[in-house]
């Protein structure tokens, strides 16, 4: 997974690089806006993580040029100034997401993965902890153990894996797995999740319930 990181602060750039590399990403670093602009053209990444306050041309301008070229590379803006306008303006300029520094690392990783999925050639393999879900072959494993899942359970797990590290609401799950107004209640989602929870025992993931709202699937027991 090729990520372009544009950050002028050496300490943060170094920390981000290590963190993302630990997540199995290949990180290329640019120090200023012009360099970023050049790299985006020469070697388009899967996702660009872009600081707004850059020397030379700022993050907004980099995004503006990128979109002006008709390039749809997903962009995650990092901003330290929470000047309200920054957030709004960033998204208006054509960025896909933003995060205010300092951020929670799992959230950053989750957002980058979400953007990467949007850009990636439809990957058929989803993995977290010991779970591997191969939607091409419609096979799921926990470690070496095959996982038997109903169609609905599969859909719920797939959605949770796609949004690993992020809180998802039950309504979001319903909307995603039964998009055509099929009759699926929030209670039914709860039933699927509780069955999944039993089946995912020992899978090296935690599937946390946010009472009254939804779920959070994360790596780690």
């Amino acid at each position, binding site marked *: 997974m090729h990520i372009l990181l544009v950050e002028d*602060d*050496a*300490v*943060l*750039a*170094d*920390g*981000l690089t*290590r*963190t993302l590399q*630990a997540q199995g990403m290949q990180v290329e670093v640019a120090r200023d806006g012009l360099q970023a602009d050049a790299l985006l053209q020469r070697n388009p990444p899967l996702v660009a993580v872009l600081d707004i*306050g850059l020397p030379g041309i700022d993050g907004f301008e980099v995004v503006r040029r990128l979109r002006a070229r008709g390039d749809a590379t997903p962009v995650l803006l990092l901003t*330290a*100034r*929470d*000047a*309200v306008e920054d*957030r709004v303006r960033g998204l208006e300029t054509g960025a896909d997401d933003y995060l*205010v*520094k*300092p*951020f*929670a*690392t*799992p*959230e950053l990783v989750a957002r980058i993965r979400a953007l990467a999925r949007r850009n990636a050639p439809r990957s058929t393999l989803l993995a977290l902890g010991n779970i591997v879900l191969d939607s091409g072959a419609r096979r799921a494993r926990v470690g070496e153990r095959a996982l038997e899942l109903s169609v609905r359970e599969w859909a719920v797990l797939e959605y949770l894996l796609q949004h690993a590290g*992020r*809180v998802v*609401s039950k309504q979001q799950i319903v909307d995603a797995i039964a998009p055509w107004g099929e009759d699926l209640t929030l209670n039914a989602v709860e039933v699927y999740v509780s069955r999944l929870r039993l089946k995912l025992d020992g899978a090296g993931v935690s599937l*946390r319930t*946010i*009472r*009254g*709202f939804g779920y*959070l699937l994360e790596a780690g027991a």
Partner: protein
Amino acid sequence: MSSIRLRLLKWLVGPILAFNLGAAALTYLLAWTPAQLAFDESLRAAAGALAGRVRAEGLAPLADGRQAVDGAGEASWAALHDARGRLLAGSTALPRPAGPGLRDAALHGAPVRIAVVALDWQGAPASISVARTVRARQQVRSAIVRSLVLLEGVFSLALVGLVWFSVGNGLAPLARLRKRLDARGSADLAPLDAAGMARELAPVVDAFNALLGRIEAGARAQDEFRANVAHQLRTPLAGLKLQLEWLAARHAGDPESARSLGLMLQANERMIRQTNQLLSLERAEPNRFARSRLQPLDLAGLVAESIQHVVEQAAAKEIDLGFELDAAPLQGDRFMLRDLVDNLVDNALRYTPAGGRVTVSCGASPDGGSFLRVEDNGPGIPPQQRRQVFERFVRLDQQSVGSGLGLAIVRDIANLHGAELRLGEPERGSGAVFTVAFP
């Protein structure tokens, strides 16, 4: 405070009334003097005529001694005195004449005017006195005074009215200026347009615009300073956090290092939190609140957005964090309300003991507004301390780690949105219930 209107009125109305009074006095004199002279002339003529008759007819015209009452109800008396003042004929009521001429006197208690003319009576000098009551004169005089008072009264009122209107009219540009200033938003620092304003106001408008310019420059400098502070603090904090996390992952197996790194991470988190809170507190300053940023929002959506940021904190203390979110529409500033939600939830998670329970709910209230409620089953807050908790830098409990700013931020933001902030206790058991009721 001095009033231009009062000042103008005082200096216009006062002199006008004084002038009117003077003019009235002069008019009175001018009208009354000729009338007086005419009456006197007629009295003197009557005395002269009587003297003629006495010379021709003897004392007969004075025979009845007293008076005649003429058609106008005016009584008159006549008498003939010799040079030494002895009464020769006529009314005894008349005083001894003091020589020819006219004078005022009183007869039987009524004011009279007396005319004396000299004549020769049987070869000796004598004088005829004729006295006449002054009823007609008084009637004429009161008629003059009445007309004058009426006229001057109407005149004065008309003038005062005119002055009042003119002063108001003259001050209208000021009122218009004030209205334009009132209509401005609190954050609108655009200069006033002097076009269409009175020339006399131009210096005021210029001075005002200069002031606005300085304020705007100040506000911009403050914004820039804030943005700089945010950047200068948050970027290194973010870098430090990532480096520490990386190091902590590497040294997870070494308890000594892990402990030290854990403490560093905690300190780092605290610095991050304090920085964020100071910046939100500054953002919630009333003079930075822009009505233009208000938009229709749903509290349920805002709470949902903030869940991601609080689940870790809840998980770390094994707090059962729950939500009961119903549609809660309101007009608000999205970013401030996010600060409000984050701080209320953070506060609850912070002061609820491990293993506790925190529930965030929102919805529409029966009165048409919306509410946000954060309920915990922690120790609660004693009633006498409930007011205090919203003050800045107040921490009720010295053990827990907090900046003492969170609830002050909540209060400021609630105030800006016209919301009522209540602190109570749950229906059952211990705990604290924070309710923000939006209008």
